[in-house]
């Protein structure tokens, strides 16, 4: 995919994101979606909702998405969606909203393109160190389902999931080449995900209560209001993910940045399973959907496709299938209540592993980039953040520290 096509895809995502949120049909941010019914009724004006959307998005953009994009040159999906969502709600004119959304998408493209243009001119000391951030993440992704099992079922769950997961990781080299270069850790992550989801299906609801009718009607209505634009957004995301311009969660961004594409896709599948219960139920209560679907298996579908066109087809198909299946999934969550509880445990498990793995990788990278001082800068930033009641999201502390070390390295090199 050339740069013009990538720019068009980013602009298209921004434009459609602005249109669907303005229509009240879907929102990317989980905190904006529940407010859309009041927006549709006119109880909250667009500019007011835009302000609220900005207040919950600014931190995510600055201290969650941006640091990972800076160290990889790959857009996190938050950068592609959140500014467009804020701007889409801002103006009264539909055309201005759509144009502002497209401009926000182009700005995300411009940032990534600029970073990619700058990287080749950076000292080898910097460029050879940045990929090290991803090393501990790549080596620990299979712990996501094990940590989730611990948070959901305690040590009993760890034993049930940890043994087969460890067996796959240990078998490693004996498994032969896996599809697309999937690592043993990635395979173990997928196996562990299947095991914990299956385990959550053991307990059925004992009472005969049905899903409230209005919730089912709400998700069915989304087929009319949201299916077409979201299918196109899914296609654009799939194409960009296939061309390695766009990824989702920090782990997937770091893995894509270091060439572990199928492992990044496996992370996206785990993340999607973790968010699916909350997205489906918040869609049912709000009558609006998630603009990128369950984050991030639409991107995963693109990543494992052979060409951008196939990636587009896969992304569009996955998001469409997800939306069409929403009433069925809503019923499934009702019959098997532990699925929703597991979703929270999976998000907690992934965050717990990533916080420490990204920090460890960042110390490693900073130490390699600027011996002695590099590691000290990252660790000092971590300690300051803890002492100041976490003004930065813990997972972002490492990459922010590495970016600071890179600047110091550049200044030192220039000064020398």
């Amino acid at each position: 995919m050339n740069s013009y096509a990538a720019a068009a895809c980013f602009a298209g995502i921004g434009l459609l994101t602005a249109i669907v949120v303005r229509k009240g049909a879907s929102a990317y941010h989980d905190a904006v979606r529940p407010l859309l019914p009041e927006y549709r009724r006119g109880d909250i004006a667009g500019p007011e909702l835009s302000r609220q959307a900005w207040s919950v998005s600014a931190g995510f953009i600055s201290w969650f998405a941006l640091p990972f994009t800076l160290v990889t040159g790959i857009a996190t999906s938050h950068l592609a969606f959140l500014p467009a969502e804020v701007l889409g709600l801002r103006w009264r004119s539909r055309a201005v909203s759509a144009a502002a959304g497209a401009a926000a998408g182009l700005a995300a493209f411009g940032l990534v393109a600029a970073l990619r243009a700058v990287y080749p001119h950076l000292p080898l000391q910097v460029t050879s160190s940045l990929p090290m951030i991803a090393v501990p993440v790549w080596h620990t992704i299979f712990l996501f389902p094990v940590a989730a099992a611990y948070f959901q079922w305690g040590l009993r769950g760890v034993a049930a999931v940890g043994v087969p997961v460890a067996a796959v990781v240990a078998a490693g080299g004996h498994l032969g080449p896996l599809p697309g270069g999937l690592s043993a850790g990635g395979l173990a992550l997928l196996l562990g995900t299947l095991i914990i989801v299956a385990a959550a299906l053991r307990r059925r609801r004992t009472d005969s209560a049905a899903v409230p009718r209005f919730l089912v009607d709400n998700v069915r209505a989304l087929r009319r209001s949201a299916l077409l634009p979201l299918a196109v957004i899914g296609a654009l995301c799939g194409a960009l993910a296939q061309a390695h311009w766009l990824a989702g969660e920090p782990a997937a961004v770091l893995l894509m940045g270091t060439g572990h594409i199928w492992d990044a896709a496996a992370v996206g599948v785990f993340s999607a399973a973790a968010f699916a219960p909350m997205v489906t139920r918040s869609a049912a209560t709000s009558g609006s959907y998630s603009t990128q679907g369950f984050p991030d298996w639409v991107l995963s579908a693109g990543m494992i496709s052979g060409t951008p066109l196939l990636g587009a087809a896969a992304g569009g198909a996955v998001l469409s299938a997800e939306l069409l299946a929403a009433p069925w999934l809503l019923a499934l969550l009702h019959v098997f209540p532990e699925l929703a509880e597991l979703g929270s445990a999976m998000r907690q498990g992934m965050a717990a592993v990533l916080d420490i793995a990204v920090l460890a990788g960042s110390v490693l990278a900073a130490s390699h980039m600027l011996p002695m001082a590099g590691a000290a800068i990252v660790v000092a930033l971590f300690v300051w953040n803890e002492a100041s009641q976490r003004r930065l999201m813990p997972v972002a502390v490492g990459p922010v520290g590495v970016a600071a070390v890179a600047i110091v390295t550049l200044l030192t090199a220039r000064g020398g």
Partner: protein
Amino acid sequence: MTSVVITGMARDRAAALAADTAAGRIEILSDSDYEGAIAVQSGQVDYYVGLCQSGAGGALALAIGLIGSKRARTVAPAGRPVAEDLIAAALADGVVAFGVSVDHVDKAVPAIIRGILNHRA
């Protein structure tokens, strides 16, 4: 007795912290976000505490949908330290569902329980 349901990420840890602070003066429950929001909506439980990464998304997504946005508020978002006066103000405004970033669970959850105890005193 006043009751509080804790939902979302790290809810077991949050429930333990809440129970320590409540010291038997508030009933602390732990459940999924959907069941917790339904319980508050139907009046079976008085307060809801939801936890997620940002404190504003998954933490309150279902509570806002089922209880209403005027009765739900993020009091400890990611990147902003907990302020007890904000919790007191929210309670005075009739807020019953509180959103908390999982980064702030150790300080925010006890602060909410203390706020509820003071509010009900």
